[in-house]
């Protein structure tokens, strides 16, 4: 791959890619990460003598592709914040990052999405019931089965199950489902982080007995 021969510019170009890959991390932490990596690259390159283009390329090669480096920072940061905040949106965002990594993450994300959708629907229905009384939990009559939370066309048939009890039941079910989904998501995140810890922070982390890291 052809690279700029100016070592300083080559380092800056690498660090720009690092910076742009650190999405979701607070700006002061990004500045700190970039500063630390710059020091590492320069010092490692200079350890062989002068800051030559070849030495810089070696240092960058040893550090790895920018997207590989940033993904480690981002996933850990996002998951740590999700675990710390307990807010559904932050939790879901953390799970989304996990979903982009593997099938397990995708399945957990899907389950959480469904959980939050059900919880929010019940909650909204309960909140809107006083303003739109036709909102309810509708069930179809014997010949046509359906179950709808909301409004149905007047000529569709069926009857409403909960009446005004939808308000307390919807609040309880909605809040409960959101709470349960958040607990499930946090439990999954904790397990995910424990697994990463056991696996030594991910793929291609360390080796021994040979002089080449994997």
């Amino acid at each position: 791959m052809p690279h700029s021969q100016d070592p300083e510019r080559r380092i800056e170009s690498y660090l720009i890619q690092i910076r742009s890959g650190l999405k979701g991390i607070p700006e002061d932490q990004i500045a700190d990460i970039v500063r630390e990596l710059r020091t590492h690259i320069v010092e490692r390159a200079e350890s062989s003598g002068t800051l030559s283009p070849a030495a810089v390329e070696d240092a960058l090669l040893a550090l790895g592709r920018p997207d590989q480096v940033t993904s480690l920072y981002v996933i850990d940061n996002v998951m740590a914040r999700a675990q710390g905040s307990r807010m559904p949106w932050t939790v879901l965002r953390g799970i989304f990052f996990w979903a982009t990594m593997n099938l397990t993450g995708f399945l957990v994300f899907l389950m959480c999405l469904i959980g939050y959708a059900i919880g929010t629907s019940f909650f909204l229905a309960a909140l809107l019931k006083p303003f739109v009384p036709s909102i309810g939990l509708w069930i179809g009559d014997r010949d046509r089965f359906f179950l709808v939370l909301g409004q149905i066309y007047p000529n569709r048939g069926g009857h409403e199950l909960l009446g005004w009890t939808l308000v307390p039941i919807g609040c309880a079910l909605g809040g409960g489902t959101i709470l349960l989904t958040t607990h499930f998501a946090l439990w999954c995140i904790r397990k995910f982080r424990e697994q990463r810890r056991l696996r030594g922070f991910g793929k291609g982390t360390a080796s021994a007995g040979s002089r080449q890291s994997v």
Partner: protein
Amino acid sequence: MRGTDPQIQDSADKWAVQLRKGCLELAILAALWGGKLYGLEILRTLETDSDLIISEGTVYPLLSRLKNEGLLASEWVEAEAGHPRKYYRLTPAGRRQAVAMARIWARFSASLNGLLGRVLQESE
């Protein structure tokens, strides 16, 4: 392992990599036991003292995580000549974690060594 089937050797090598990955956190905490070090020094300490070679792009996110967990603290130190360096040191929680992990490791490896002694003796 002289005369070992390449497939078995490959499988053993993969196992060794997994085993060492699991020890990374303990190795970093142990490397910092003697005092503060910066990233490149940590890499070199692990390489020379434990033969544990970490991918360079991995060590910094790992240090960042340990810092976020309160096991490490960091500070920028302006060097008299050269570049400012970010030094890491163990926090009291980090020291307690290092001791706890080291004790578990020592107990486990001692008990396993007893079992492995026969395997190694008979294979020679």
